[in-house]
């Protein structure tokens, strides 16, 4: 989240899209309800009418996988309205804090769904040189603050979305035009100075072949409406697990090191080369370009990991770490394909249940059988742990040796948890785990101890990477020691650093994650703070827990004030600049505390310093979000001749379902009553009784057509398999008119499997091996199925 949970209560308009917040993040509704009590409008856009829709002022149905068409229509509406009614928008923000007026290279082009620089053979944009600014002779981007130059971002944006007219958008999404207009008008009211609109999203946004661009579309809209950096605004990802924010921050991802440092690559043969490639540069004196500090964070990380073994002479241990081969993919589907091929021989499945949660579950279950060994550490024997004895499988035919390690639950261990709003809260151990169960820290420390002993004794390739590690956690590892290591030390004084501003690239400081530096310093464990008094007027609660970065509660908060430093929203000020004292007050200012708004652009994490309506350089699939159809779709793309995201990653092209055989749009989701792959809830009797069986939701027309009655057993089938479920025939789903044809949705919760108190077929047996162009997140939310009575 750019903002945080409590801040949702500040919004005037709340757009929930790609999320069923009421069901999957019930606590969000504590704040949504508070905002509504003050008169806020709640908008819900979703293929299904859910418990969130039931509370919304405006509900708009939409075919799954057509978010960019829906949002592109909103961009067109807003851009045209800005021209017609400029007084209803914050043009100072648009002109000064976004790249609306910046000029783009003349090489940039877009034609029939393809941006300039595309290489069809490699399914990638190889040449992104056109996705850059025109620069003057000093290297500073050229601007036209009148926003009229045909090459300025605002004009390019207008041109790009001119195709997204109401009729076309309605044809693509199935949303009635009247509903589109209602949503666009309502959300656009948050563009007025002094008004706030927030967007809450979740996996309904991201789990698509265009998932990253769906989020980019939110970015474009929120920048046009001046909603980033302000109270009650922002783009707020409702994270699916209590500590998934922490997992991301600490880099449980194959392309990152802790604190969003890019992983070392095979072309980065030296630390200097890595720094050269990954440290952004700017010639613009107004760009703060915070990532210029990246080498300090990288060296401090290496010093935290390798201690005295990390010296200036050995590039601080840079060569100990493996380098990712250019073009290699180590994300979820790729890993299971490697297991299928036998390239990966062992698996630690740790608090994860891919046999239910992964796409194409049957392929995953088969891949597990190709492993030599698997260790499953969990609270229950999950479907993954029990894959070798699943229904229909002869255990004798499975050669994989499987080990089960009992884990400790959240109340049985101490440590920190980072919530969606970046608040990192310390929690304590209430009881000992049962039996032989141990906490995760104990397990990783002792496992590594064993590995270190083996490497010390037997050696091996790059043994130093393991043996030289600073690994002094002892028999009973302490989460406090780890938290301090993450915060970092000044090696000269031996004291904890105050925060990341103190980190250096000369080897004199350590930090296990620069972003969390400041969370546990000489003032104590800031994450354990529990002062619930709010000293702000906007619910920052700055002395409750600790929020990265630097306890800043609303990021990009420099954008909440005008060029004089006066808050755009007098009622809900986030920060304020005092020109006399040359000081900021309010929330922790987003960097450059001594600099006035006129001196530094507000988006300090971007090398140009302004919000990207046009995504300069970074994305894999284009500088503007463009609608493409899902990998499996019942229709053809009405917006261009390019059917699928041209940069999406395809693994099994032969496993593509076609509408003649599978005419309905399948989509997966969660319900309040169950948690993820279900182990934690299908094993609890009180939750099992609430949602006891796998079900499939369909509309009444489809039920009539297929002779399916409410509560009937049905079979849902797709290109990769079939599942059984109980039909819920509901008024809450309705056929949508897409390209002149009625399209039906089949809704499937993905919580069920063959283990636990209540069991059922896994919806993910139906979902495809296809990945988003940027992240390769699988397209769980839109695929094709057929349905019949069992």
């Amino acid at each position: 989240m750019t903002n945080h949970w409590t801040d949702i209560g500040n919004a005037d308009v709340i757009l929930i899209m790609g999320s069923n917040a009421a069901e999957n993040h019930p606590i969000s509704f504590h704040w949504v309800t508070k905002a509504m009590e003050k008169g806020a409008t709640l908008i819900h856009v979703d293929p299904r009418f859910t418990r969130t829709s039931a509370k919304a002022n405006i509900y708009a149905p939409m075919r799954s996988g057509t978010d960019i068409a829906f949002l592109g229509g909103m961009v067109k509406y807003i851009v045209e309205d800005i021209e017609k009614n400029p007084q209803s928008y914050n043009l100072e923000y648009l002109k000064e804090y976004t790249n609306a007026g910046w000029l783009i290279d003349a090489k940039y082009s877009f034609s029939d769904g393809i941006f300039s620089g595309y290489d069809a053979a490699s399914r990638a944009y190889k040449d992104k040189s056109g996705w850059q600014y025109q620069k003057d002779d000093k290297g500073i981007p050229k601007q036209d603050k009148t926003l009229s130059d045909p090459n300025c971002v605002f004009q390019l944006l207008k041109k790009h979305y001119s195709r997204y007219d109401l009729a076309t958008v309605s044809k693509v999404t199935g949303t009635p035009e009247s509903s589109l207009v209602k949503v666009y008008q309502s959300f656009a009211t948050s563009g007025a100075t002094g008004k706030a609109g927030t967007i809450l999203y979740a996996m309904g946004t991201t789990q698509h072949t265009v998932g990253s661009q769906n989020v980019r579309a939110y970015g474009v809209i929120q920048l046009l409406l001046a909603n980033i950096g302000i109270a009650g605004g922002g783009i707020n990802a409702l994270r699916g697990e209590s500590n998934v924010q922490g997992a991301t921050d600490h880099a449980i991802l194959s392309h990152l090191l802790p604190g969003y440092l890019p992983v070392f690559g095979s072309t980065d043969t030296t630390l200097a080369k890595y720094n050269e490639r990954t440290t952004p540069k700017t010639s613009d004196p107004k760009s703060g370009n915070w990532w210029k500090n990246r080498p300090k964070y990288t060296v401090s990380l290496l010093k935290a990991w390798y201690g005295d073994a990390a010296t200036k002479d050995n590039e601080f241990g840079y060569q100990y770490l493996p380098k990712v081969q250019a073009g290699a993919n180590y994300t979820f589907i790729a890993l299971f394909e490697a297991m299928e091929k036998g390239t990966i021989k062992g698996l630690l499945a740790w608090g994860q249940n891919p046999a239910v949660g992964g796409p194409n579950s049957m392929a995953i279950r088969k891949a597990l059988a190709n492993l030599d060994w698997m260790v499953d550490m969990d609270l229950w024997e999950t479907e993954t742990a029990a894959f070798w004895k699943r229904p229909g499988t002869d255990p004798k035919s499975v050669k994989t040796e499987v080990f089960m390690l009992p884990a400790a639950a959240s109340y049985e261990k101490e440590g920190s948890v980072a919530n969606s709003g970046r608040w990192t809260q310390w929690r304590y151990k209430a009881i000992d785990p049962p039996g032989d169960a141990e906490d995760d820290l104990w397990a990783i420390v002792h496992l590594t101890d064993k590995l270190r002993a083996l490497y010390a004794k037997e050696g091996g390739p790059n043994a130093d990477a393991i043996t030289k590690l600073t690994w002094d956690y002892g028999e009973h590892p302490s989460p406090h020691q780890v938290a301090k290591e993450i915060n970092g030390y000044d090696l000269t004084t031996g004291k904890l650093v105050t925060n990341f501003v103190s980190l250096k690239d000369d080897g004199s400081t350590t930090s296990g994650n620069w972003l969390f530096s400041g969370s546990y310093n000489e003032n104590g464990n800031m994450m354990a703070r529990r002062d619930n008094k709010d000293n702000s007027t906007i619910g920052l609660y700055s002395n409750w827990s600790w929020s990265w970065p630097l306890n800043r509660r609303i990021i990009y908060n420099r954008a909440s004030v005008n060029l004089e430093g006066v808050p755009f929203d007098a009622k809900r000020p986030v920060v304020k600049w005092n020109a006399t004292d040359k000081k900021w007050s309010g929330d922790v200012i987003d960097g450059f505390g001594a600099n006035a708004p006129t001196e530094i652009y507000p988006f300090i994490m971007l090398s140009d310093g302004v919000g990207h309506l046009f995504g300069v350089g970074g994305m894999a699939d284009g500088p503007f979000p463009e609608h493409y159809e899902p990998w499996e779709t019942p229709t053809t793309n009405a917006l261009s001749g390019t059917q699928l995201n041209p940069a999406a990653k395809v693994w099994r092209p032969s496993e593509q379902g076609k509408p003649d055989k599978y005419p309905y749009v399948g989509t997966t989701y969660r319900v309040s009553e169950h948690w993820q792959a279900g182990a934690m809830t299908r094993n609890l009797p009180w939750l099992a009784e609430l949602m006891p069986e796998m079900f499939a939701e369909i509309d009444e027309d489809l039920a009539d057509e297929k002779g399916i009655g409410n509560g009937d057993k049905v079979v849902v089938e797709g290109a990769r398999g079939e599942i059984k479920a109980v039909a819920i025939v509901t008024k809450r789903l309705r056929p949508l008119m897409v390209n002149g044809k009625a399209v039906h949705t089949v809704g499937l919760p993905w919580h069920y499997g063959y283990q636990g108190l209540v069991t059922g077929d896994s919806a993910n047996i139906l979902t495809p091996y296809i990945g988003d162009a940027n992240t390769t997140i699988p397209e769980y939310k839109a695929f094709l199925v057929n349905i019949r009575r069992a």
Partner: protein
Amino acid sequence: MAEKAILFDTTKCMACRACQVACKQWNELSAETTKCEGTYENPPDLSHKTWVKINFTETERNGSPAWLFSRQACMHCTDAACVKVCPPKALSHHELGMVTYDKDLCTGCGYCVDACPFHTPRTNRNLITGIAKMEKCVMCTTPGLDRVGNGLEPACVKTCPPLALQFGDRDTLVNEGKSRVSALAAKGYSNAYLYGENELGGLHVLYVLDDSPQVYGLPVNPKISGVTVATQSVIQPAGMLLGGLTIVGLGLNFMVAREAKLAKEPGRAKKEK
């Protein structure tokens, strides 16, 4: 002490059912074995081990789908049929207004089950002991599990994320409910209604409704049946009177018969001589 109540706001409830689980957890009630019957709603009904449940109603409003959520549990009536009808007087009013019961006194006769206009109390017979008992929500006042007596709100209220449930002094909540209903009416909900303000002498569970009670499955102007009223005020006293007279009669009969029998005994007769 001021009477307490729960205020339930249908417009805020999002049917997450945390209340159902919190109730079972706090009151140590076991789970039911259920099936999916083509709805999210489960368990299908209240029972001796399900004291609160959320009902889901699918409907349409102005051509759009609507999904209404309502709460089913003891309403804690002032004019409580169950209290009136209970032969052993196991059911009674707590000093704070809610309807509680003494499980030791309950004979499981089930009169309360039939008498309740909201069909809330349920009985269950233990298959081993053969003893039947009634169970229902007591607003978290069960001795040993008494939250309210210890200054806490009931478990369902404590857990409710959107604050659709509130606990407090009944007078305050009636006023709060009234102002919410006026606000709804001002927004065009012409049937908005505060249910429980006056029903059955005043309920201790108040509902903010954005539509009429029938839409939410609640009886309009609920009444206690004549038979129930008669039970305590006429039939039970009459029964007791009749029972008393029977005992007196039997006693008299015994004494008269005994005299007669003794009179016939030879010894006695001899003595009298």
